[in-house]
């Protein structure tokens, strides 16, 4: 498939590339050595920590999903239907603050 010239190009290329590796500068060689040592001393993450991390992520996910899906709780100050009138009334709320007095007044008409 390949002619003699192509074979020669491949042989020469291989020789030139091999030589380029032998002639790498000292700084590059040292960097590569340091990198190798760093790689080999880098402790792989313990399976136990990977599991714990996974579980923590799962819990946070579940909690977030629950909060997201669950219906918002209506915060209403109204506990009984009777109070609804009070909350929705446009009248001055001071009237209701003193409602006991007005009730007493209604029960004792002659004393006001």
């Amino acid at each position, binding site marked *: *498939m390949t002619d003699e010239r192509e074979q020669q*190009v491949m042989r020469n*290329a*291989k020789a030139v*590339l091999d030589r*380029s590796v032998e002639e790498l500068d000292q700084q*590059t060689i040292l960097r590569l050595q340091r990198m190798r040592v760093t790689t080999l001393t880098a402790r792989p993450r313990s399976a136990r920590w990977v599991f714990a991390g996974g579980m923590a992520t799962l819990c946070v996910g579940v909690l977030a999903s629950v909060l997201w899906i669950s219906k918002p709780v209506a915060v209403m100050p109204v506990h009984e239907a009777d109070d609804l009138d009070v909350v929705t009334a446009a009248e001055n709320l001071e009237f209701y603050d003193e409602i006991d007095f007005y009730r007493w007044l209604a029960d004792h008409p002659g004393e006001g």
Partner: protein
Amino acid sequence: MQPAATSWNRAVSAESVWSIERGDALDRTRALDRFLAGIERRAYRMAQIATRDADDAMDLVQEAMLKLVQHYASRDEAEWGPLFHRILQSKIRDWYRRASVRNRLRVWFGHKEDDEESNALEQVPDTSSVNADKQLSQKRAAQALEIALRDLPLRQQQAFLLRVWEEDDVAETARIMGCSEGSVKTHLFRAVHALRDRLGEHWP
């Protein structure tokens, strides 16, 4: 006496297992060190030719080393070579994709494309001179090859370096490159032709 002896035996046995495991791990680390020491320079040169950048090449080689150590250290030693090259070539492809996007953006935002490299081959002096010093001639030949290799499309470059330099067979090269054996042959054919035309009759 019997229960005490049993627990003692158990303790000794556990200690032995721990020692063996520790010894195995140490042996494996030594084997990995030998393996990486044997391939790191060639791997760096491959990455450097692909990226044209020493720091990027270092990063890619380190990422490939880390992945091999963290994920495949327990595999058979004979598998480390092909696995490492598969990882490295995959990292180089990812780098190439990112670089392509960056270059497109650069062109989009009006930056002029750097054509210094494409003209570099023309700047390499003619090595056919009879009086040329041998060492200088070798250096120029290396420069010419490097520039010609860098200018090859990535897939052709990978096929050439793996088949010709690493001497991987077609099937292994195909596995490393993640393509068919037919594609490897095509890429190599084109690469050799391009290099032959580019480097000229008198190279090296």
